[in-house]
């Protein structure tokens, strides 16, 4: 069933602050196998002009995706999350996320489209720090595959 177009433009309340820890950044950098010193060594980060260790560019997705559950689990929207795949992802940075940040995410539904039996949902997450400054915006495209399509080997959102 088509998603309700009246949800386009809907914003959800900001999430509770997520405090970015040095050791969480280290864990993430090690998980992706990236030994860049700016992620684990505060001195190295300072030498690049950052006040503390910074997070790899995609680190913030863990926070914005959790916030996007407000959308994907909104009973009024009624998205069938079992059919959802991640189509596109984009980040626009004001500055890198860094240790000590207390980040909140404000999530907005930017667009809802139907295409070839799929429902395509564009969700924007604006990530602010404690002082209210915008740190990064995450643009997430979610594709709910048509119910008749059971195989997920052909990933939705292809060019």
């Amino acid at each position: 069933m088509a998603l309700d177009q009246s949800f386009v433009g809907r914003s959800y309340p900001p999430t509770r602050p997520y405090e970015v820890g040095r050791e969480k950044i280290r864990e993430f950098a090690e998980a992706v196998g990236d030994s860049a010193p700016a992620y684990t060594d505060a001195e190295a980060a300072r030498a690049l002009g950052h006040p503390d260790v910074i997070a790899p560019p995609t680190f913030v997705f863990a926070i914005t995706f959790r916030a996007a559950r407000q959308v994907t689990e909104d009973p009024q929207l009624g998205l069938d999350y079992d059919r959802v795949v991640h189509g596109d992802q984009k980040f626009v940075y004001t500055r890198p996320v860094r240790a000590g940040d207390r980040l909140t995410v404000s999530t907005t539904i930017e667009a809802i489209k139907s295409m070839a039996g799929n429902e395509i949902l564009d969700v924007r997450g604006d990530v602010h720090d404690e002082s209210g400054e915008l740190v990064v915006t995450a643009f997430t495209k979610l594709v709910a595959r048509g119910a008749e399509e059971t195989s997920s080997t052909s990933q939705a959102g292809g060019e």
Partner: protein
Amino acid sequence: MSAKIAYADVESGTELPPCTFPVDRERLVRYAGASGDFNPIHWNERFAKEVGLPDVIAHGMFTMAEAIRVVTDWTGDPAAVVEYGVRFTRPVVVPDDDKGAEIEVTGKVAAKLDDEARTVRVDLTVMSSGQKVLGMSRAVVRLA
């Protein structure tokens, strides 16, 4: 910010040093823990096959994280990345053997965007098992 590559030293077509990133089951488990994405298609072969996948697949966000390393290693400062986007076109299939899979990333400067801001667009090509796994993989990068 202090990227080690100077805007004046690159032109449209400048190639970034390519890199290949191995990915095996252990790495996917680590990434699941670090990212909080415990979707079983990334660690449970039985479940992955039940939903029609050929095998366990890597997290799309893991592939996205690896691909940008070609840019962050090149600039020397990860903060040089001011914009980064990808399209997840094909899954990276990760078999349960001693080798796993490989993610091969090449990148080149596609355009110089702004002489004042010293920004360039880098286009990335991201392959696994001979197939393109990310589409529209682009970063805007601020150089020195």
